[in-house]
């Protein structure tokens, strides 16, 4: 296990290096002088020259890249032009808000998606199964930004029950915090809920068809125990991987949800930085999310190995 963990951590290094290269070169693809683009058309030549110097744009490209790598390692992302504060502070302010949103969406998805999938598998080919299957297919096809707008229209504009923008504070009571969280969490949870239901249904159906489940039934075990103790245990393993991937996706997918509900997280930070043409913020926020994404995937791999030690994750064969 220790060797596996060590090898997986080692594998992170080239991936993170590639991530840094991709982001560095994408942001260098900006047409013209990035400093001029960021400062806008009103900027004077002196301002552009000074800002180019500050960003290190006058250095040769390879030097810029290694400076940039060195700063990344030191967690020094530089200063934001539009927010006038260190980017690391901006990220640290916003990141917990995105995590809150992603975790609450994940909780909703597990609470609804997993039982729905089990129910659909248990009642295969009944009305309930068709109902859950249809809803989960609609769920995975849902443009969440549209769902967000519709939720805001119905629950905020029409009924006036829940706020549609901003993030509540626990200082103003638990309800203030929760009421702001409900709509964005539901919007963000829709796709993972549907995916969990689909995955659990298909893996339960596969597990139920195995001989040991038939044996358990033939031994006279109650259906409740057969399903919940034997079948579910095995059916949950693929869910773990998907949950990890979904959590990473939720961090990225929150861009749209946060924009609709003005939730002050990383996604809104990126969108606002794009509007303000503050590409240094965009570059560093994206790098940060990518690193988190890679680390979460590592944690999922490790957990997967812990849950199912027989699985050989080092094998690349058929790894589509």
């Amino acid at each position, binding site marked *: 296990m220790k060797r596996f963990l060590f090898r997986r951590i080692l594998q992170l290094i080239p991936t993170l290096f590639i991530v840094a290269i*991709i982001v560095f070169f994408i942001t260098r693809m900006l047409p013209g002088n990035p400093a001029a683009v960021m400062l806008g058309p009103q900027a004077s030549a002196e301002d552009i020259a000074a800002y180019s110097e500050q960003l290190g744009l006058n250095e040769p490209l390879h030097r810029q890249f290694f400076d940039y790598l060195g700063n990344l390692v030191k967690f020094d992302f530089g200063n934001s032009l539009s927010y006038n504060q260190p980017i690391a502070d901006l990220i640290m302010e916003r990141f917990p808000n995105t995590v809150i949103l992603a975790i609450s969406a994940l909780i909703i998805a597990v609470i609804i998606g997993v039982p729905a999938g089990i129910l659909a598998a248990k009642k295969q080919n009944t009305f309930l199964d068709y109902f859950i299957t249809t809803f989960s*297919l609609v769920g995975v096809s849902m443009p969440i930004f549209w769902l967000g707008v519709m939720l805001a229209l119905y629950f905020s504009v029409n009924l006036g029950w829940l706020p549609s923008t901003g993030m509540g504070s626990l200082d103003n009571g638990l309800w203030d915090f929760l009421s702001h969280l409900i709509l964005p969490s539901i919007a963000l949870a829709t796709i993972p809920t549907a995916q969990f239901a689909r995955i659990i249904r298909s893996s339960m159906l596969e597990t139920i068809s195995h001989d040991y489940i038939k044996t358990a039934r033939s031994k006279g075990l109650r259906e409740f125990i057969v399903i919940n103790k034997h079948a579910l245990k095995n059916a949950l393993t693929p869910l773990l991987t998907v949950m990890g991937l979904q959590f990473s996706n939720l961090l990225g997918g929150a861009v749209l949800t946060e924009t609709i509900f003005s939730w002050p997280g990383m996604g809104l930070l990126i969108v606002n930085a794009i509007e303000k043409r503050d590409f240094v913020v965009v570059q560093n926020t994206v790098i940060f999310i990518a690193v988190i994404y890679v680390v979460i995937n590592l944690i999922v791999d490790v957990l997967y190995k812990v849950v199912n030690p027989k699985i050989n994750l080092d094998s690349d064969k058929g790894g589509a």
Partner: protein
Amino acid sequence: MKTMEEIENAKELQYLKAKKEQSFFRKLLRNRFAALGLIIILILILTAIFAPFIATHPPNAMDVTKTLLGPGESGHLLGTDSYGRDIFSRIVYGARISLIVGIAAVLFGAIFGSLLGLVSGYLGGRIDAIIMRIIDGMMAFPFILLAIVLMTVLGQGLGNAVIAIGVSNIPGFARLVRGQVLSVKEADYIEVTRSLGAKHGRILFRHIVPNSIAPLIVYATMSVAGAIISEASLSFLGLGVQPPTASWGSMLQEGKDFLVLSPGLATISGLAILVTVLGINLFGDGLRDALDPKMKL
């Protein structure tokens, strides 16, 4: 000259192939959900092709005297937007954008991704390691985030949206094709072909590619749905297709600002995206089940 036995064998093979195809289509069309998905896709394609004949007004024609009209008012089937443009006509023309970006971006991703996957899986060794580390790096970005960053740098426009979404699609195709190549390349019949002196190109394109085509088709179909959502997302964020071109995402963005006065604009444009994506997913699911129900996609 072919012997009688060879001719008989060829006929038998042809017959079996035709029977297999027949059974595939029968299986596909017997699946009601897949048939419904196919109908939705056909309606979308026909709408996109015949948009000028279906639209009741020019999609970009503004009329400031008729802004935010409700459905059916002044001859506007679904009403008008804040510039007085006919919503129905813009939805019809929006189908073109969704379809063009959806298909073109997936083609882009499929071509480059499959080539990378083929080379990586077939050659193996150091080249495989390098390509896969690059793919891992690309996969470290949430899909939509990579597209957003690329659009920010490339700038708005239909072509750039295709490139941004297409590039985001490359890693998925590369990994899929590489996996297929790895599972096929060690098969006995490939070994035999190789020992008979077949060149790499022939082995790849006559034997390995045809064996990888089924999961590729299913994955590509599902990816079109994802690409359509991505285009709408980019346009919703103001990064996609440039105004005044009708795109469902930008219509939804505009509708968001007039939710109280005219909820129809946001509702209808979002429904168009949902129904389209649902249709493609239904068809993709059916396609997967008809080709190989055990396919892990």
